[in-house]
């Protein structure tokens, strides 16, 4: 990497920070409980729109893992999301009506908030339909993981997005508030992920899974990226470059071993394929606020109309993290 190249990346990182600072003006605080954050707190950042029905289970899941404080940006919901969040004692809430797309799909908003509140904290950045699974998550709280990462001098932890889907058409099961989404969407693809390395940023680019298999069988390069680095010991100089797929500085993207070993990693179980998706994609066709002209949602919209089944006879039923570890989707690394 040339001096010029690394300087370019530095400028890019600075630009992200500037954007983050400017877009902070779009955020109006509805509930600022950040005074409750102490030095040890593990923080969770998320931006959302009309996720009221998912929230109760989402909050419960992450509280049980040991997240201490939630920092949310609400993007113009009209289903009671902000009202619900205002009642939660461990949630700080900002709201905005500005464009999600122009805020780099929410990254600007969160980069700004993280710069202000997450410095020197372990911060988890996830969407409302992403559920973090890490080695030993059934017996050890999130704090055990972050303590171990601290003692190993590891700053970032990768968790690949694992698309979960139901058996039968997506719309055939109703998701009720507070329900574990994986009771419905309990299946996943175990071994059709392909990986390449991004030479500039050093991150891996993972594609595959049921979306690539069913919607992008003829245009694989358009299949959504599944690599994510959601858990980072944040420093105010860091920035997410593109959603949570890529970080700057580049060193944070080196979550994989290049000499044959395995580093520890987790998974983000993605509960996107519930009956709530139909309403989302219909709305998205009008708003066009998602990545690459909402190509993905266009595909869903088309797919959902024919009511497809993502399930196939080779689909795996989710059991626990150990199963994912054995299948090679995540790794314990040297954590024992």
């Amino acid at each position, binding site marked *: 990497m040339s001096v010029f190249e690394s300087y370019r990346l530095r400028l890019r990182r600075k630009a992200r920070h500037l954007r983050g600072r400017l877009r902070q003006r779009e955020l109006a605080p509805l509930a600022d409980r950040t005074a409750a954050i102490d030095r040890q707190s593990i923080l969770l950042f998320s931006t959302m729109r009309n996720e009221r029905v998912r929230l109760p289970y989402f909050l419960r899941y992450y509280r049980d893992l040991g997240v201490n404080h939630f920092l949310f940006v609400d993007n113009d919901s009209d289903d009671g999301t902000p009202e619900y969040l205002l009642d939660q004692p461990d949630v700080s809430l900002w709201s905005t009506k500005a464009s999600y797309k122009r805020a780099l799909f929410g990254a600007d908003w969160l980069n700004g908030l993280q710069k202000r509140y997450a410095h020197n904290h372990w911060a988890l950045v996830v969407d409302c339909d992403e559920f973090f699974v890490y080695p030993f998550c059934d017996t050890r709280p999130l704090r055990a993981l972050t303590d171990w990462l601290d003692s190993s001098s590891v700053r970032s932890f990768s968790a690949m997005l694992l698309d979960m889907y139901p058996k039968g058409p997506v719309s055939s099961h109703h998701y009720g508030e507070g329900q574990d989404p994986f009771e419905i969407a309990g299946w996943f693809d175990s071994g059709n992920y392909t990986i390449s390395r991004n030479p500039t940023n050093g991150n891996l680019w993972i594609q595959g899974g049921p979306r690539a298999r069913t919607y992008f069988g003829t245009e694989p390069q358009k299949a959504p990226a599944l690599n994510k680095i959601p858990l980072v010991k944040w420093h105010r100089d860091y920035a997410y470059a593109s959603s949570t797929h890529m970080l700057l500085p580049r060193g944070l993207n080196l979550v994989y071993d290049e000499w044959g070993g*395995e580093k520890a990693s987790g998974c983000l179980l993605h509960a996107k394929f519930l009956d709530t998706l139909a309403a989302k994609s219909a709305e998205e066709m009008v708003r066009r606020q998602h990545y690459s002209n909402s190509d993905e949602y266009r595909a869903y919209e088309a797919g959902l109309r024919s009511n497809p089944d993502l399930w196939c006879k080779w689909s795996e039923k989710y059991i626990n993290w150990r199963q994912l570890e054995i299948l090679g989707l995540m790794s314990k690394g040297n954590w024992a």
Partner: protein
Amino acid sequence: MSVGFVMLCHTALNRAAQVARHWAERGCPVVIHVDKRVTRTAHDRLAADLQDLPNIRFSARHRCEWGTWSITAATQTAASLMLASFPQVRHVYLASGSCLPLRSVGELTEYLAGRPRTDFIESVTTEEVGWTVGGIDYERFTLRFPFSWKRRRWLFDRYVALQRRFRLRRKMPGGIVPHLGSQWWCLTRQTLSAILDDPDREKIDRYFSKVWIPDESYFQTLVRKYSVNVESRSLTLSKFDFQGKPHIFYDDHLQLLRRSDCFVARKIWPNAERLYSTFLSDDPAIRTLAEPNPAKIDRLFAKAVERRTRGRPGLYMQSRFPNEHWENGKTCAPYSVFEGFSDLFENFETWLGKGAGSRAHGHLFAPDRVEFAGGETVYNGCLSDSAALRDYNPKGFLTNLIWNTRGERQCFQLGPGDRQDISWFIATDPNAQISVVSGAWAVPLFHSNRNFSDIRKDAARLQKIEAEHLSILRSVYAKARVRIWTMAEFVESPMEPLQTILDEINPRAQRRLTEAPKMVDLTGFGQFLQNLKNQGMQPVLMGDFPAGDDPQSAAALRGKPYLVK
């Protein structure tokens, strides 16, 4: 009362207090050293917590930094205080604030009382130590280390390099043979006091204060000078990972720890509530007089280190993406590639599946779709049969397939009509067994009902592709088990090569091949080749087929597909 504990604490003081109280209340004196970097208030709170216990002392505080003399100095101070204040103590046990006793004090005292003159300290000569991290072992004793490794890494490294460059050496004080070992020991009063009251101590201390990580060598070396009975192992269960930092125990290790029969374990995660409450309660558990047996835990941690350093061969995933040639196994299991066989034999895949007891796919790299065995559209691990998805990352496709079907041998067909991007990968993969009948692609052309000029063009194209492929298989970089026959050679006696291949795939299969695959009709093939030549194309890869002289064995095989043994 025969054992006293020296505790070195720097974090999680509340847990240290809990453990100190446990020991002190059961009659064992405790001397606590608190790192000077701990705030005064935290220190005072700890002292206040424990002030009701008469047999707990606090020693003078040192500022401790890993790898430096300060930790040894702190140990000396605390140990001296222990020996001076509690004359009845026979064994001194060095522990840390994150240690946890796994067996009752009664068991430990009984164990030590039975071995009154034994010093438990891991003490190994530098030649035999395998665990030093960073490559500095003997040089710990011969170089100087004035710079902090944690804070001044650059200077540390430069200074070491400089000393190596100019071959600077320190002289060791007389009578010292360097030994290394775990920091956590249990020494008798006699040995410990001999070390601490050594008339040469000043000189020895001055020497060790410049040694790298003296807490792993000071007592370990000196004990050899005074002890009459060194038992070279630590009573503390403490395991290190590949970076040299201790493994941490959590609640889910409870059963493992219980069954290890070790006396003390380190390091315990401070929030491991269940471990602390279980082991610090006076469970009237069965008193075993068993020797410590940490084998199970050793295995667990050894496996973890192996996972981190070597990984699972053939796996490519989010946290394991090896650089080329560092894969430690490009694929995870052996597989076989057959080239030309399916052109030469009818229903070769069916025959192969039966004969080799493996999964026989068609042309996995066919241009229009992936021909999985049995015509499946989706395969193990939800691999799709879409050619576009496969061609997007052919190497990923193949490694995924082999990974997904662990435990079942995969065979597939390849030919010059297929996508060739995978050639180099399989050629350089030691797991690949590649068998080629070169030139067999001409057989389908021979049987096709097409204009001869088109056939000629196709033949020229396929021959060029296969020639390139063969040169890859014959390159010096090829690591696969490659066998190449020309078609003429092969049809002469097809059974022998087939038997060799199948034996290699399934070495345990005792029986010989009884059923030969049925070879296609080759009558007139020689003439066909001659026609190609006449049209100006030179077919070379199939070997020598004289025009008009049709292969005998092919005709013979057609007559009797069953061989007699």
